[in-house]
Each structure stands twice: as structure tokens, then as C-alpha cells.
């Protein structure tokens, strides 16, 4: 936890383009506070009464504040920054191993230049994923969350500073692989895309409703493996409808390329 403010960002590391070096050899030097992460009484509480209250002994003080208010404010700052530059930001979420990075590698190779794609990678440790994305020819920043199980808006603000995406481009934020925690934290994205792979089983939407409820698009990944696994696509679609009636499902394979033109078109349509 940060000794200045108790914000829990200690251990979070951000690697910008060209700083990817050997994994795990840059420890905790960049908690720089060069963004909207405000310190000091009342500073972060815009519109709140002055925070120095006197004569409170033994009294109840009404707070009536959303617990996620601070993250939500920072997310709105990110959203305003991105919107002002016409940048489409997508929050890409799934369980570990559903194929987020493989999808982004192929997206970078086949459509990266046309979309102006840049990527923020979120993982607990290592710059392995960022190195893969960089090798695919795409500008990337890596966030290591340390103990954290999800990205939050302040981490993404630091990622944006490191990456500085161009106006009119597409930014994909690959969240920490986890179907629970990332669902609660607004990053300032314009759309939420959740991956569900055929190797995981068809019951994921009803087992993790919080995650799938917020999805704008569900990418059903690894569909080239459908002949070899026991995955009921009809059940998956029906269950998803129970959780998120408006979510679109798009079957894709980053190995064979099946369905990927529709994914690229989905991104492209939203940048106009």
C-alpha cells in the first residue's frame, strides 16, 4: 500500500514502449503520481465539503459515498481524455488462457496498421505478453499489478501516459485474466468485450454472471477446436441471453482466422 495515501498501488509497475527488458527486473520505482491521483485533504473529493471538520467527538458523520467513487471519477477522466482524441478504448476480459493475447497478436498483424492499434497489457507479473504484442508490430505498455487481481482506472491512466495513443486509434486494454474481479472496475473504456473459449465449457456465462452482464460483445474463441471438445454452442448462447439479453456473440479462431474479419469490422465501425 502507498505510504502517502494508502491507495494500494505499491507493487504496480508500468512499462512503456521500449522498456520491456528482462521480465521481473524493475521493481517499484515508478509510483510517480504524475496523473489525476490527487493527495491532500478534499483534493480528490470534488464537490465535497471541506474535509477538516471540528468538534466531532462521539458523533456520527454521514458519508453517503459510493465505495468505488474514486475509481469511477478517474475512469471518467480517462474516458474524457480518450473521447476528446477520438480513441476507441476496449476493455478485453476473460479467464486466464481464453486466448486474449493470441487474438491481439493476430489482430495486430492483420489489422493493426489500419486500426492504429495500441495495447495496454495487464498481468500480475512479467512483460511476456507485451513482448508478444510488440513482436507482432504493435505499440504496447505493460502494467504489472503485483498483488492486484484486476486493472483499475489509475493504473490505466499511467498506462495511457506511457503509451500516448494517437488520435482516432483503437486501444485495447487486456485486463488481468480473471472472470470475477475486473467486472467491477470501470477503466474509462467505450466497450467491454469478454472472451469465452470453447475449451472452458459452455456454462461460464451463468457461472460468472457479473462479468457477462456488462459485456457489449462476447467473442467465442478457439472455435477451430469445436470438433474435439464437448461444447454446446446452443446452450452457451441461451445462457448468455439469460444474463445479458443485448450482448452479441461472435465465434472466432485466432489459429485459423475464422470470424476475425467480423471482429476487425466491429472495431473499425466503432472508431468512426
Amino acid at each position, binding site marked *: 500500500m502507498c505510504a502517502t495515501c494508502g491507495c494500494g498501488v505499491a507493487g504496480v509497475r508500468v512499462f512503456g514502449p521500449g522498456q520491456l527488458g528482462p521480465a521481473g527486473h524493475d521493481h517499484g520505482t515508478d509510483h510517480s503520481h504524475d496523473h489525476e491521483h490527487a493527495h491532500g485533504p478534499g483534493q480528490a473529493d470534488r464537490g465535497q465539503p471541506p474535509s477538516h471538520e471540528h468538534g466531532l467527538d462521539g458523533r456520527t458523520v454521514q458519508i453517503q459515498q459510493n465505495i468505488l467513487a*474514486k475509481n469511477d471519477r478517474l475512469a471518467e477522466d480517462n474516458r474524457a481524455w480518450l473521447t476528446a482524441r477520438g480513441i476507441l478504448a476496449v476493455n478485453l476480459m476473460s479467464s486466464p488462457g481464453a486466448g486474449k493475447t493470441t487474438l491481439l497478436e493476430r489482430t495486430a498483424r492483420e489489422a493493426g496498421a489500419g486500426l492504429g492499434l495500441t495495447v495496454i497489457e495487464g498481468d500480475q507479473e512479467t512483460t511476456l505478453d507485451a513482448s508478444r504484442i510488440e513482436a507482432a508490430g504493435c505499440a504496447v505498455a505493460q502494467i504489472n499489478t503485483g498483488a492486484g487481481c484486476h486493472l483499475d482506472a489509475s493504473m490505466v491512466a499511467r498506462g495511457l501516459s506511457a503509451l500516448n495513443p494517437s488520435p482516432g486509434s483503437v486501444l485495447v486494454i487486456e485486463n488481468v485474466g480473471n472472470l470475477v474481479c475486473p467486472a467491477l472496475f470501470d477503466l474509462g473504456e467505450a466497450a467491454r468485450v469478454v472472451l469465452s473459449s470453447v475449451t472452458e465449457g459452455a456454462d461460464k456465462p451463468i457461472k460468472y454472471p457479473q462479468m457477462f452482464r456488462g459485456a457489449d460483445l462476447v467473442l467465442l474463441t478457439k472455435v477451430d477446436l469445436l470438433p474435439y471438445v464437448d461444447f454446446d454452442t446452443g446452450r452457451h448462447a441461451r445462457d448468455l441471453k439469460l444474463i445479458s439479453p443485448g450482448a452479441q456473440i461472435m465465434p472466432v479462431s485466432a489459429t485459423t482466422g475464422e470470424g476475425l474479419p467480423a471482429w476487425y469490422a466491429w472495431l473499425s465501425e466503432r472508431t468512426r
Partner: protein
Amino acid sequence: MHELAITEGVVQAVTERLPGTPIACVHLEIGVMSGVVADSVRFCFDLVTEGTTLEGARLDIIQPAARCRCRDCGAEFEPDGMIALCDCGSADVAVLAGQELRIRSVEVV
């Protein structure tokens, strides 16, 4: 374990609002459909408050029940668990209550 970050958010909000003021009790509202487990917040609270003005404070959590309204037939109902499905078969529902995640008040020493 996002409850750790959630609990840190509580401590941060209270210490920013009442800097230097020792706190005796924190009252939270965590709805049953909020996606946050109240017991996990209780587990994290002592750990996260250590060395802050909230150290040793009591934690009181109320958990509002879920309430939904069906957008197709208009019925109001209490969903069974996290999957909000109306008796008419529709899943197109508005959540009216149960997603609360609020710091209600604190008692100062």
C-alpha cells in the same frame, strides 16, 4: 479478491473526508447483487486499517436485498441469486435494488 481493493477504497475515502480523526465505527451498505462479498470485506478490514485512523474500528455492514423490474411484463420481483429472471421468462430486467456499494456513515471516537 477485489474485496481488498474495495476495503482500501473505504479506508481511503474515510481518511480523506476526516483526516486525522479516530474512527470508532464504519457503516457500509453492500447489496447482495453488488458482486462484493461482505465477509471478505470483514476479513480485509482489520488488515487494511492497521496504522490508520480506522484501526480498531467496528465494521457494520447492511446487505440490501435484490429487487428487479421486468421490462417486458412490468412485474417487480426478488431474483433468486445473481441470475435475474422474471416468471414470464424474460431476462430483460432493470435492477432496482441490491447493487449498492456505499459508505453510509462513520462514528468518530
